[in-house]
């Protein structure tokens, strides 16, 4: 966060106490309807996912042989699947798998992409050139096609699927933070840090990173939305979560076989994916208005 002081100098970090700054940020966040809606949707889904084990629901693996492909109502609020398992319960347990996988893949992508972008932007030269060309060609493949191929190489499974999505998401973060670094690395405070003999590591992590991170936070929220869609696509195809683990994508896949008989079987998890993605997208857009007001066109 950069504050402009009365003498017109850009300084990293405000001098206000941390508590006050958090309070101010919370106030601005609360005044942004998009961010609030997004956060509410995200909290709602994450909450349901977290509380799935304690909610009064049948176990996701319990087979009710008397009610296969049952419609909604009675003990099964959203009906059952082809084996007689409760759809609502599987939906909530599936949320745990889908949300955990998506957030992990974004965290991994950040862990690799951000340092890579920082170094690439700050060091420049051959290193930058090589990294950028590699990322260019990775991005020449459509994201889902690349994720599919990597997941096929690694072998099916939720962990490998998560890795594949992380690899696909790295270039976005790297390019984003590299662009930021290029635009601020000649700022006064970076020169000042250099002039007092700060080490390169200290300059990159203590001075450049905090001033370059805002668009990345925004992109991370949007990235979770992308990861949810991609993870469910992988599971839908059969390369993500493996049965009997409930995941939204594999539930949709089974559901499509019984679309006419039990439409909720496919449409309920599809709607859950929609709500989760909408939540993270709104949160991202809201954060963008707060953190990165000049970049709405990007």
């Amino acid at each position, binding site marked *: 966060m950069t504050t402009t002081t009365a003498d017109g100098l850009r300084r990293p970090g405000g001098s206000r106490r941390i508590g006050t700054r958090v309070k101010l940020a919370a106030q601005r966040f609360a005044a942004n309807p998009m961010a609030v809606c997004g956060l509410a949707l995200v909290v709602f889904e994450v909450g349901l996912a977290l509380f799935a084990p304690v909610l009064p629901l049948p176990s996701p693996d319990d087979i009710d042989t008397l009610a296969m492909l049952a419609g909604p109502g009675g003990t099964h609020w959203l009906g059952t699947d082809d084996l007689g398992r409760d759809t609502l319960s599987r939906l909530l347990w599936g949320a745990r798998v889908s949300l955990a996988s998506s957030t992990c893949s974004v965290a991994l992508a950040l862990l690799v992409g951000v340092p890579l972008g920082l170094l690439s932007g700050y060091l420049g030269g051959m290193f930058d050139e090589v990294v950028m060309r590699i990322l260019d060609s990775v991005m*020449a493949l459509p994201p889902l*096609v690349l994720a*599919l191929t990597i997941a096929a190489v690694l*072998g099916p499974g939720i962990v490998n699927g998560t890795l594949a999505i992380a690899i696909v998401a790295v270039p976005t973060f790297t390019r984003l933070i590299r662009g930021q670094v290029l635009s601020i690395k000649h700022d006064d405070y970076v020169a000042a840090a250099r002039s007092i003999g700060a080490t390169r590591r200290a300059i990159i992590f203590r001075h450049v990173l905090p001033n370059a991170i805002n668009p990345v936070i925004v992109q991370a929220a949007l990235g979770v939305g992308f990861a949810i869609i991609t993870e469910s696509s992988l599971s*839908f*195809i059969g390369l993500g979560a493996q049965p009997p683990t409930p995941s939204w994508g594999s539930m949709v896949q089974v559901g*499509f076989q019984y679309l006419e008989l039990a439409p909720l079987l496919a449409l309920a998890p*599809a709607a859950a994916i929609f709500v989760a993605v909408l939540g993270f997208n709104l949160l991202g857009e809201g954060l963008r208005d707060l953190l990165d007001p000049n970049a709405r066109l990007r």
Partner: protein
Amino acid sequence: MLRYALARVLATIPVVVLTSIIVFALMRMLPGDPITVLIGQAHVDVGEQQLVQMRKDLGLDQPVPIQYLHWIKRAVSGDFGRSVQSRQPVWDVLRPRILPTVQIGLTAWLLALVVGIPIGIATATSQNTWKDWAGSVGALIGAAMPYFLVGGLLIYFVALKWRLLPASGFVSPFVDFGASVRTTILPALTLALGLAAVITRQTRASFIDVMQRAFIKTARAKGLTEQRVVSRHAFKNAMLPVVTILGIQLATVFSGAVITETIFAVPGIGRLLVDSILSRDYPVVQAAVLFISLMVVAANLAVDILYGLLDPRIREA
């Protein structure tokens, strides 16, 4: 202009080469020796001697970079080897799959354009009215809708309940044009919704930005009608970022095809990719991925050149 176009074409060569290296490398990282995969499919017993000979015949005893060069030499002439599954040449497997994907993808893309750009302009020129609000919320919802939900709803209501259109399959327009149109509508609509949402948002943002520029004030000051200001002065300038998005979206069309073609049982490239991954038919996977990335590179090239046509500043730079 010709020089600019030529420069753009040359600039894509390293990207194509790197992409082909990545595709090749990914395939070599696949679990299992290609030989064992081939033999496993053929169900024959072979001795150690024969294995060595087969390796030699297929060039697998040579260093990996040399193998790459051999592979790319054959790929350029359209020889991708044979499908492990059907034993046909890979190109013969791939070729009939191109038409459905391209037909559905282009239909979706055009549909998204025709819907997204006017809505984007309408929301931008009537900012903070109900029109703007409806358009923007619609775009947010459209962008978050997974293909599963759109496709599932369309199949359930339009195909299964109301029996208006077929739920699956594809008919070539050269066989039965009417049936071809009917099989194209639902998958194209499924793909188009997300695309249209993104185009709407980009058009809106871009128009709002352009409408604040000085030349718009000048155009208004000389007494032009608002409609003329928008259509003559704002439109071309605001379309530049939209053109970029349109190029990126051709890549989205292929990503989407993987899902929509599976949902709607369309025999296209996306479905072929999924099927060949699941049946471990790696020569086909390789060719399909390479084909898709070449299409994306070609689309980006077309966008770059269109950019130069639209904006003289870019081709002079």
